[in-house]
């Protein structure tokens, strides 16, 4: 049974004198516990899909169903991780992590303990009372991950969460996120323009093309790669062959400008 379904979703952006079609006829579905990547060039509407799924943005036509219910009626918690951590600089790490529970008004000692446990689990000890400015970029993005997980979301939307990090930190965080999401059996959609990241982390890759944003092709990641940690998956022999296929497809859609 599909967990999240998009049926013929179309979205337009309006400006004063013009409008652009950001998404055209997007249909796909995701099973519970599946990790799907949306891969494509910038401007292909990847992030727009996440905004629509999260309910922050309203699509112009089509259906978005979460557990067979329209997204607007769904009570299921959604976790959203952005390109940058967007930790609130005037709040301590613990208060930042508890932001969701504070908004939903269900902070109790259990939550606070869970927050501390999760912080430990992502390798952050004794940071609860510190302020975000005292932490490095990688540590801050880990805090943002904990902030996303604390509300126990059923689906995680990851909007290029590793793109602002340096390469080494990025590889480490990929492994961490992969491990955590599999341990807690979360469903996730990852938006990225990094082919390697998409192959190493996901079960399925939805390749998109721009103008207007639409689905070009869907790749199934071989089972051998799916079960490997992202760092090791990159060394797997099947990794390169899938990379080449995706590369070829991406170039096919791209007008030859470079």
């Amino acid at each position, binding site marked *: 049974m599909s967990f999240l379904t998009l049926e013929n979703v179309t979205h337009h952006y309006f400006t004063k004198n013009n409008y652009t079609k950001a998404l055209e006829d997007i249909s796909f579905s995701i099973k519970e516990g599946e990790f799907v990547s949306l891969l494509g060039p910038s401007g292909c509407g990847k992030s727009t899909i996440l905004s629509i799924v999260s309910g922050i943005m309203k699509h112009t036509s089509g259906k978005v169903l979460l557990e067979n219910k329209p997204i607007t009626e769904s009570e299921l918690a959604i976790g959203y991780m952005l390109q940058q951590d967007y930790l609130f600089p005037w709040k301590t790490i613990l208060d930042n992590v508890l932001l969701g529970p504070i*908004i939903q008004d269900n902070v109790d000692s259990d939550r606070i303990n869970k927050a501390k446990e999760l912080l430990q689990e992502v390798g952050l000890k004794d940071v609860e009372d510190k302020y975000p400015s005292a932490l490095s970029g990688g540590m801050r993005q880990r805090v943002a991950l904990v902030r996303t997980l604390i509300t126990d979301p059923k689906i995680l939307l990851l909007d290029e969460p590793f793109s602002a990090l340096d390469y080494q930190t990025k590889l480490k965080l990929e492994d961490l996120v992969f491990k955590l999401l599999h341990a807690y059996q979360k469903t996730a959609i990852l938006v990225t323009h990094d082919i390697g990241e998409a192959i190493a982390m996901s079960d399925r890759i939805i390749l998109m093309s721009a103008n207007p944003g639409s689905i070009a092709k869907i790749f199934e990641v071989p089972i051998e790669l799916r079960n490997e940690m992202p760092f090791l998956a990159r060394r797997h022999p099947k990794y390169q062959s899938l990379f080449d296929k995706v590369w070829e497809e991406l170039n096919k859609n791209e007008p030859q400008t470079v």
Partner: protein
Amino acid sequence: MPIKEDSHIFEKHQQRLKREKRVVMGWQVFILVGFFGLWELASRENWIDPLLFSSPSKVYNLLIQKFSDGSMISHTFVTLFETLLGFIIGTLLGIVLASLLWSSSRFSKIADPYLVILNAMPKVALGPIIIVALGPGYISIIAMGAIISVIITTIVVYTGFREVDPNYEKVLLSFGATRWQCFKSAVFPANLPVMISTLKVNVGLSWVGVIVGEFLVSKEGLGYLIVYGFQVFDFSLVMSALILIAIFAAIMYKVVERLEKWLIKHTT
């Protein structure tokens, strides 16, 4: 021993800083003393008309005399009270108005042309109307002190509200936050530095509003003393009121500056 050498360089650096500070202080004192000294000398030697421009010694004697008979204390107190209240009301009202503008984009669109006009308009020109409406008393003067800063505060703070990175709101919205929660947890606290910096501008503005108000109402206060001294040609009185205003405005500015440092330290 490289460590000892390094600390030696650091000591030299500190000494340089100290010397620089002393030189600056020296010049500042020199200008102050020079100004009053030259003024006194010019007045005694009749280079300037002592009747018109008074002299530091006359101003000093007048201040001593007026403070000991208590009349200056009440004038100073009245002006300080009006300025403080005008400053606080103007700032708070401006922040409340900015919040209302943020809460409804339709309201802000409707209010836009009126804000532009009110901002461009010299607020002290409204003085007579305010006095007619609120009576020739301290309420009118406080209103002048407030009105002069309220519109600019509204505009600056509202602009600040709108410039908050929308991604903070996105984070909150993904947790199902309401618009009020977004305001309370992101937009307002992110703007505290902007609001604090408007405080500094408003100190100066409130003084302008209150002094002009006292010119018009002409009952009591330092602004009244200036107008009164001008009318009876007692320029020692005018000068002493001016000096008191300069001192208290500077003190208020410094207090707000301290407050700014404290708030920034404790809110960010």
